[in-house]
C-alpha cells in the first residue's frame, strides 16, 4: 500500500485531479459564502449546534446511556461497539450471509470497514450515494466528507458505470445520463434489499431519534425500503435533544453549501401500525427492525486530549474545501477515511496518531479552516499539536 505521503505526491502530479479539485472547491466557496451572507440564521444555527455539541461532549457517557434507553423505548435495538471490529461483528450478526444489502454513505461504516466485511461474508453490498457508489466501483477511498467522488471527472464516472454496471452509455453521455444509469441500477437493488445501512448526522439522546440530511433521496429509500435498517452512529453524533439534532442537521447543510437540504429524515424507531383495533404492530411500510450501532473508536479517549474540540465537528466539509493544501490533495492528505484539516484530527482519533502526526507537517498553519468552521474548532491549533506528537520519544 502506498504511504499517505506517496499518495500526496502522486496527487500533485495528476493534472486532471488538480483541475477537478480546484473547480469543486471554488464553486463550493462561492456558494457557501453567498448562502451565509443571505441567511444569517445559518450562523445562528451553527452557534446553537456548537452549544449542543459542547454540552454533549461534556456528558457523553451519560448521554450514551440515555440514548440507549431511549432507543429501547421506541422499539429500536441499540448495540454498543468500542472498536471497529466490534461494530463490524454487530452488523454481521444482524445481516448474516447471502443477503442483499444497500448502504447510504456513512463514514462511520467506512471506519469499521463494514462493506468489505459483509462482502467477505458472502453478501451483495451496494453503496447508493452516487459519489460513494463511484468510489466503491473504482475500489478507492472517499475523497471528501460529503463529496466522496470529488476527484472524479465525467469521463471516469462514465467509464465506471459502463464497465462495472454494464450501463452501455455512449462516449458523450452527460452527467445526467450517468446519474440516470446509476439510479436504474440502484433502484432495483434498493427495492429488493434485505438490509439497509445508514449513518446519521445526529442522534438525539432524549428520544432516540436519528436525523439524516440528504439531497439525493437515497437515504429515505435505504432507511425505509428494507425490512431491517441498521444505523451506524459514532458516539460524537449524540446530542441532548431532538431539537439539537435538527439544529445540527440545518447547520451542516448550510455550511456544506446545500441549503435548504432537499430532505431531512427523522427516524424514531421501526415502522408500525395501529390501524386494526388500535393494537400497535411493528413493520408497516418501513422496516420492521431498527438497529443502532454506536461506535466509540477512540472518541471517548480523545476527550482527554486537545482533540476533544474536534468531537464538535458536524462534518460539513467546509474546512476541506477552504484549505489551500486540501485543494491540491483531497483526502489523499489523510488516513483511510478522513483527510484535510478535520480529517487529520479524525485520523488521529480513529486510526493512528503516528500517521496523522506525520501528515500534519504539510499544514500551513494559515488558519483558513479555523475561520471556515461553523462550530469554531481550532483546527490549525490541533494540527500543530499533532506535530508535537511526532517528536515524542519512540516516534520516528
Amino acid at each position, binding site marked *: 500500500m502506498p504511504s499517505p*505521503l506517496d499518495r*500526496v*505526491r502522486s496527487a*500533485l502530479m495528476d493534472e486532471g485531479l*488538480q483541475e477537478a479539485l*480546484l473547480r469543486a472547491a471554488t464553486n463550493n*466557496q462561492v456558494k457557501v*459564502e453567498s448562502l451565509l451572507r443571505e441567511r444569517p440564521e445559518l450562523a445562528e444555527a451553527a452557534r446553537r449546534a456548537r452549544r449542543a455539541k459542547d454540552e454533549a461532549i461534556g456528558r457523553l457517557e451519560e448521554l450514551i446511556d440515555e440514548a440507549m434507553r431511549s432507543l429501547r423505548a421506541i422499539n429500536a435495538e441499540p448495540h454498543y461497539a468500542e472498536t471497529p471490529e466490534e461494530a463490524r461483528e454487530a452488523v454481521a450478526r444482524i445481516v448474516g450471509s447471502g443477503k442483499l444489502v444497500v448502504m447510504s454513505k456513512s463514514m462511520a461504516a467506512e471506519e469499521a470497514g463494514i462493506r468489505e466485511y459483509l462482502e467477505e461474508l458472502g453478501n451483495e453490498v451496494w453503496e447508493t450515494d452516487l459519489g460513494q457508489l463511484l468510489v466503491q466501483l473504482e475500489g478507492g477511498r472517499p475523497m471528501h466528507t460529503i463529496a466522496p467522488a470529488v476527484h472524479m471527472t465525467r469521463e471516469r464516472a462514465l467509464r465506471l458505470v459502463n464497465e462495472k454496471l454494464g450501463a452501455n452509455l455512449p462516449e458523450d453521455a452527460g452527467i445526467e445520463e450517468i446519474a440516470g444509469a446509476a439510479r436504474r441500477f440502484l433502484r432495483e437493488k434498493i427495492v429488493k434489499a434485505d438490509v439497509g445501512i445508514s449513518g446519521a448526522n445526529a442522534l438525539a439522546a432524549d428520544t432516540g431519534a436519528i436525523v439524516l440530511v440528504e439531497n439525493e433521496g437515497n437515504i429515505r429509500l435505504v432507511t425505509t425500503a428494507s425490512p431491517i435498517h441498521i444505523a451506524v452512529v459514532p458516539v460524537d453524533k449524540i446530542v441532548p435533544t431532538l431539537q439539537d439534532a435538527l439544529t445540527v442537521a440545518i447547520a451542516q447543510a448550510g455550511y456544506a453549501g446545500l441549503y435548504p437540504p432537499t430532505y431531512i429524515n427523522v427516524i424514531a424507531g421501526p415502522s408500525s401500525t395501529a390501524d386494526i383495533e388500535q393494537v400497535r404492530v411493528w413493520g408497516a411500510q418501513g422496516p420492521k427492525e431498527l438497529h443502532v450501532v454506536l461506535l466509540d473508536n477512540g472518541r471517548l479517549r480523545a476527550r482527554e486530549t486537545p482533540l476533544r474540540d474536534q468531537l464538535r465537528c458536524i462534518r460539513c466539509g467546509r474546512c476541506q474545501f*477552504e484549505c*489551500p*493544501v486540501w*485543494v*491540491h*490533495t483531497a483526502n489523499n492528505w489523510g488516513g483511510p477515511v478522513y483527510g484535510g484539516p478535520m480529517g487529520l484530527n479524525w485520523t488521529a482519533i480513529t486510526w493512528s496518531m503516528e500517521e496523522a502526526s*506525520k501528515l*500534519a*507537517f*504539510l*499544514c*500551513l*498553519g*494559515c*488558519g*483558513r479552516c*479555523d*475561520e*471556515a468552521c461553523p462550530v469554531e474548532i481550532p483546527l490549525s491549533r490541533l494540527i*500543530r*499539536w*499533532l*506535530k*508535537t*506528537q*511526532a*517528536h515524542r520519544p519512540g516516534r*520516528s
Partner: protein
Amino acid sequence: MLDPKLVSDLVARYMRDTGLPVPAPKEALYRWAEPLRLPREGPRYLYTGGLYQLMPYIQAMVKYLEKMEEGRAGRLALGLAGRLAGLGGLAKAVARPDKGLVAYSESVLRGIAGHLRRAGVEYAYLYEDDLYSGVILHDLGLDEDFTRHANMVYRRLRERGVESVITVDPHTTHMLRSVYPKYVDGYSLEVKTYIELLDEAGYQAKSGGEAVIHDPCLYARFEGVVEQPRRLLSRSGVEAKEPRRSRRMTYCCGGPIEGLAPSLSKRIARIRMDELRRVSSRIVVMCPICYANLSSVAPEGVEVVDLALVLGEPGA
C-alpha cells in the same frame, strides 16, 4: 517532500547552538540598522525578531535541501550516517544568500524605521538584543525547544528594560502577542505592529497608484490587523484593491511549507498569484515569507512589494 523529522532535527540543532534556525552570522540581524544610528534606549523598542533578515538565508537552505532531496546521492548524504558530512556543505551554501533578497529585506526594515520616525513614534532599537523569536520551532511542533528559546528571548528583553515592543512581521507579532504568553510564565509585554502604530498616529505617506492587498494569514485571522494597512494606503494616496479572498478569509501564499514540500508550496503560491494579478499588477505584502513565495512565481510585469516600500522609499 523533505522528511519533517530531518528538517526539525537540523533546525533544532542550529537553534540550540546559535539561536538562529540557519547557519547565518549574528550581525545579519542588526546590520540593516547600523547606518541609521537609532537610539539604544526609549519608551518602545523596535523588535524585528529577525524574520526579514533571515529570509535570504532560509531560502538558501531550502534550495540546498531541495537539491539534496532530488538526487539519490543527496538522499544518502542526508541519511543518518552522512548527516554530519552534509552539514558542512549546507553551511557553505547558506553563507551565500541571494544579495538581492538581502538588500530588499534591509530596505524594508529601513523603510519601516523611517516611517515610524516621520510619524513621530518615539522608539529605540535593540541591536544585539534583537533576537530571533523562535517561530520556526513553534511551527514545527518542537515545543520543548521553543519553550526554552521563548523564555530566553523574554529574559533578554526584560533585562534590557523592555516593556513595549514594535514588531514588523505577522509571524513575530503572533509569537510575541499570542503565543509567548502561553509558554512564558508571568509574561507581560505590550506588542504592537508598526502598521498599527502608524495607523494610530494618522500617518500619511506620499505615495500613489493602485495595488492589490495580500493579507497575511496571521495578521488577518489571528492579530486583527486588517483595516489598518488599508487606511494607511488610502491616506497615502494608494488605491487599495481587494482580491476575491481577502481580509479574514485571505488565502495563504504557501510559504510556510516551502521548506518541507516545495512543489506543493509553489502550487499554492501560483493559485494565489493568479487571483491577485487579476486585480492589479502591483501586489502589496506585509511579510517576508509572502514576499519570497509570491515573487518566486510572479510573471513578467507583476510586482510584489512590501507595504513599507509602497508607502514610500526608505529615506530614514
